[in-house]
């Protein structure tokens, strides 16, 4: 008569238990991802306006056409501006980050403390950090102008505003590149340098043929992360300069915010812009993932032997 503990399990088959566990996640995904995605696709094809109480009119690809063909080319300019920002910011972060990591790799007194201090900017909230920089950049009473003994105007209508964003971003995210570079550098086996030393390789040779190629996968990973993150940059530009159109800090997300929340126009066009941004992000992410697969395949570490 003893049926044991196995009996109740037959109440539900293994696959139905599995399905039951997946269901909530699936429901959430549909409710908060798939539905909004489809709904916004629908909205982007209409002149839907949440404020005026009239039924939205279907306009087909009209919103997209307006965006692409707008006389001031504001959309394309925001895209190229964002691209340039990614190039400059990530480039600087990588160069400075890797250089600092090279210095931090040597052992010296107080290295731990020094590294910790260097990492602080990364821990701050971008909004808070943006506010600080806003005061530093202020044309009339900012600390930066006082230091430089100049009267630089970092206002959004000036090209300098773009560089203000670059400076703030580089300051904030270089520690991230330091961290990843250090991880890459520390993974290089010491015996490779010793072998090179016995082989009479010079310092540049060691750097070029051991340090650089072996740290590269990790640094590339950092570049990829930072590029994707910078591409959707919003907070720093918003805090520094607000969401006005036609400024030197009107990046894609800023433009999207300005169009979506800035006026009483239809929501159709901003939604269409959001869709363009989504497509661009997806394209970028796909490229990046392809590339990471490639790196993983080629850059497999030296087959592990006894250390």
């Amino acid at each position, binding site marked *: 008569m003893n049926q044991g503990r196995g009996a109740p399990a037959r109440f539900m088959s293994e696959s139905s238990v599995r399905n039951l566990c997946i269901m909530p996640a699936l429901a959430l995904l549909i409710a908060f991802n798939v539905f909004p995605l489809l709904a916004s696709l629908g909205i982007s094809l209409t002149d839907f306006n949440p404020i005026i109480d009239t039924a939205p009119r279907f306009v087909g690809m009209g919103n997209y056409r307006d965006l692409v063909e707008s006389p001031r080319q504001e959309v394309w300019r925001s895209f190229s501006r964002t691209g340039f920002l990614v190039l400059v910011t990530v480039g600087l972060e990588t160069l400075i980050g890797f250089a600092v990591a090279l210095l931090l790799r040597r052992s010296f007194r107080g290295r731990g403390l020094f590294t910790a201090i260097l990492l602080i900017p990364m821990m701050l909230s971008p909004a808070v950090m943006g506010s600080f920089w806003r005061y530093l950049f202020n044309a009339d009473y900012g600390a930066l102008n006082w230091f430089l003994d100049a009267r630089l105007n970092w206002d959004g209508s000036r090209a300098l505003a773009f560089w203000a964003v670059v400076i703030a971003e580089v300051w904030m995210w270089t520690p991230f590149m330091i961290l990843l570079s250090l991880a890459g550098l520390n993974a290089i086996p010491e015996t490779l340098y*010793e072998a*090179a030393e016995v082989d009479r390789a010079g310092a540049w040779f060691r750097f070029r*043929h*051991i340090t650089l190629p072996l740290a590269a996968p990790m640094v590339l990973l950092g570049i990829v992360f930072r590029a994707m993150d910078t591409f959707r940059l919003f907070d720093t530009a918003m805090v520094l300069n607000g969401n006005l159109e036609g400024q030197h800090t009107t990046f894609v997300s800023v433009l999207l915010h300005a169009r979506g929340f800035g006026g009483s126009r239809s929501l159709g066009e901003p939604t269409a812009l959001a869709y363009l941004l989504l497509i661009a992000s997806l394209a970028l992410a796909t490229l990046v993932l392809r590339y990471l697969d490639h790196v993983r395949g080629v850059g497999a*570490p030296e087959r592990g032997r006894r250390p």
Partner: protein
Amino acid sequence: MPAYEIAGLTVAFGNAGARPALDGVSFKVGAGELLVVLGRTGSGKTTLLRSISGLQKPAAGRILEDGGGPQGPVDISSLPPHGRDMAMVFQNFSLYPRMSVKENLAFPLRAKALGLSAGEIEARVSQAAETLGLSDKLCRSPTELSGGEMQRVAIGRALVRRPRLFLMDEPLASLDAKLRERMVLEIRGLQRSLGCGMIYVTHDHVEAMSLADRILVLDRGKVLQAGPPEEIYRHPCDSRVARMLGRPGINLLTSEEGGRMGLPLSEKRLLGVRPESWRVTADPAGPAVASVVEHLGPQMALVLDVQGIVLRVTAPPSLRVKAGDRFRLGVDPADILYLDR
């Protein structure tokens, strides 16, 4: 090719009270000699190689190089690694992973100080590749190679340099037995044909015996004994050296045990008898009982129990034997080693 003399080499790590990794190590390497440093893990053998190469700075001691010129031996202990013209093969191969096999081989030749032309480099690399059977692997990446191939690239990288002295740090430790056997022969042949000196570090006594012109036994940072393999095997200076060579290991008996077995004694405290020195004769009334019998192919390894004394003995496979059989044992007095400790 120069000869080398290492004099009083001492290396200490960490706190002052700790036992130094190397404690006054002195020995010589003749021109074109293959010296094997035999020692267990932690005996200081790798530290010794690193000190000779210049990667490790010794606390005391000198390294002298004697090129046979009129100026006599030169102290090279203060030279950096790249100034010593030695090539080192590391235990973990240390191939440059992003370079092809060819680039790895060419790497040591590209140093500006050598001033070699591209053609010369090419010629040396292809010669080394041919010697080591790597010609068809030149364009591969090191990560695509087998362990044996990687090791041959590492050796090749040392080879192309045509160094004055080869330093080998357990280069075969991570290879399987069959490959190791073949590589030992290859290394021996290469060293002979190049005629340059080599210091080869290992913990494997078979490797040591088959390679060495001379063996240097290192234990806890000190040289126990140095000499030709057969001398180390036949006349070990103490039980530590005796135990390190031979498999199955040597039988060490106290003089009391030796007396019980009726062996000739001396004033020394220990008697050592190699397993193969025993003459084993089947005798139902004999004092020795076989407890374990292993068939090793060319010979049999037996564990015998003689009135509570456990002995390891080898016998020809023609001797039909099973566990529980009884034997009579004999040994030529000349084969007995008398040791102080």
